């Protein structure tokens, strides 16, 4: 806990071992952030990335969970293999993604070209790089959610489905009125955790875009790392760390409130 409070303390100082300064400037670091385009860019992308990635991951994970819940040959092997993206280091996935999205020699570039006759360099434009980062993240972490959701699906008693069938609800209707409401608490819980981890993501942008082009894909943790350990502005870095902590706190509180609401509605 001590380092945590020390971060708060440090965030009110201009502190840099490089210039050997240690000067109290109150909220100066925080006010400086408002004018720092790199930071405002970072915040924007952190929000966009977290939102987009979590929503896509939940959808992707949910579809995989449904597929793996069906009966077919080789299901157990597939259930094991789906863990592979989860088990690999993000730094490997991110570095490989640099090539995966290469317009000429990357697999994604190649497929786009074969199917739609498009050659598109994702990583040189801000939007393209943002899309690439989000896709890579969804690909890597979606299967993890799928495994959790699969567990949730298997926890729904089969009697409920039979009862629904008697009432004439099958297929889509039983999904909409039975499965989904029962899964909502789990989806919310996992969304909270996933969001928090997205805000803290570091490896992915370090490997894939280095926050670029410019600062289009820089995330909070990456900014903290740059300020503190590249530019050696410990004070400013600490202030950024405090901001990301506050962000996480907000997400957690909103999530818990949503969860409470969902539970009361369910019962």
């Amino acid at each position, binding site marked *: 806990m001590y380092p945590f409070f020390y971060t708060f303390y440090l965030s009110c100082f201009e502190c840099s071992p490089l210039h050997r300064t240690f000067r109290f400037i109150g909220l100066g670091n925080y006010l400086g952030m408002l004018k720092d385009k790199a930071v405002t860019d970072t915040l924007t992308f952190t929000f966009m990335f977290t939102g987009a990635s979590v929503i896509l991951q939940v959808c992707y994970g949910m579809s995989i969970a449904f*597929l793996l819940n069906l009966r077919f040959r080789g299901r157990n092997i597939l259930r094991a293999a789906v863990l592979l993206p989860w088990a690999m280091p993000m730094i490997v996935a991110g570095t490989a993604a640099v090539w995966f999205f290469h317009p*000429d020699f990357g697999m994604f570039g*190649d497929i786009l070209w074969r199917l739609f006759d498009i050659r598109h360099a994702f990583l040189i434009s801000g939007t393209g790089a943002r899309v690439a980062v989000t896709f890579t993240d969804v*690909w890597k972490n979606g299967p993890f959610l799928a495994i959790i959701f699969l567990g949730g699906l298997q926890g729904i008693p089969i009697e409920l489905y039979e009862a629904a069938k008697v009432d004439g609800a099958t297929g889509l209707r039983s999904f909409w009125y039975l499965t989904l409401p029962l899964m909502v608490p789990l989806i919310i*819980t996992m969304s909270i955790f996933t969001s928090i981890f997205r805000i803290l993501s570091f490896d992915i942008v370090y490997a894939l875009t280095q926050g670029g082009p410019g600062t289009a894909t820089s995330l909070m943790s990456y900014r903290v790392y740059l300020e503190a350990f590249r530019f050696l502005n410990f004070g400013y870095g600490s202030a950024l*760390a405090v901001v990301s*902590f506050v962000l*996480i706190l907000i997400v957690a509180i909103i999530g818990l409130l949503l969860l409470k609401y969902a539970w009361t509605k369910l019962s």
Partner: protein
Amino acid sequence: MDIRYLKQLIRRKHLVRLVLQYLFLALFVSIVFAPLYYIFLSAFQPREELFTIPLRYLTRQPTLEHFKRVFNTVPYLRYIKNTTILSVCSTAVVLIVALPAAYAFARIHFPGSYLLLMGLLASGMLPGVATIIPLFQIFQKLNLINTLQGLGILYVSGNLTFTVWVAISFFKQVPIELEEAARIDGASTAQLIIKIILPIMKPGIATLFIINFIIYWNEFFLPLIFARDASVKTVTLGISEAAYIGQYQQAWQNIASMGVMVVIPVFLLALFFQRQIVEGLMAGAFK
């Protein structure tokens, strides 16, 4: 006539469903595995086959030249050794600390025990970035930067909360009647733990061991900041080194082969212990 038509209709509907199901499965399998295949393929493809337009998805002469080059320039064996030592030791220490704590939380209720648990969880939820700068300064003063011990301390404290959390839910699954019965038979606490609890908990412990091991193996942020010297670097750092071999920046063939060498141990673990991993992840998520 009518009935036959109806049967046909049902069969056709069934068939459509089956086809759709397998179509989606195929789509999903290709989304998940195509990138993995691409990495493995590139690691074995000779250079002149790698950079062709259009891309080739099969190789005629698989080669080990990229592996050799990476092996000769990146101190792979030392990094693997560091990573293994760190992962195994940190996992062991985490379990030694977390299991008794979790057992206490699951079984002994004393005033404030709930508060203590919540405090532990809250401190574990603290994001790494919020503490990393002071930790760096402290470690500098203590001369713990560039040491495996220093990294180990960070690894252990980083995963402790998660491990306690999951372990509590495992302990709660052990029926309390079992322990009561053993007590009546005159077992001491030590006997109880060694003879009853530990054997029952074996699968749970294995689960926690594997998940922690994989998380530690993949750790990148902490070594990036706290391991500046080659003697303590980990394999994940080796990836970025492999990217800068020779004259080409980000030489894909080197990255791919290094990636394969990093990934294979965790892949094997994930495949072999799939059941345990899933169990552990779900215990962590639900409770």
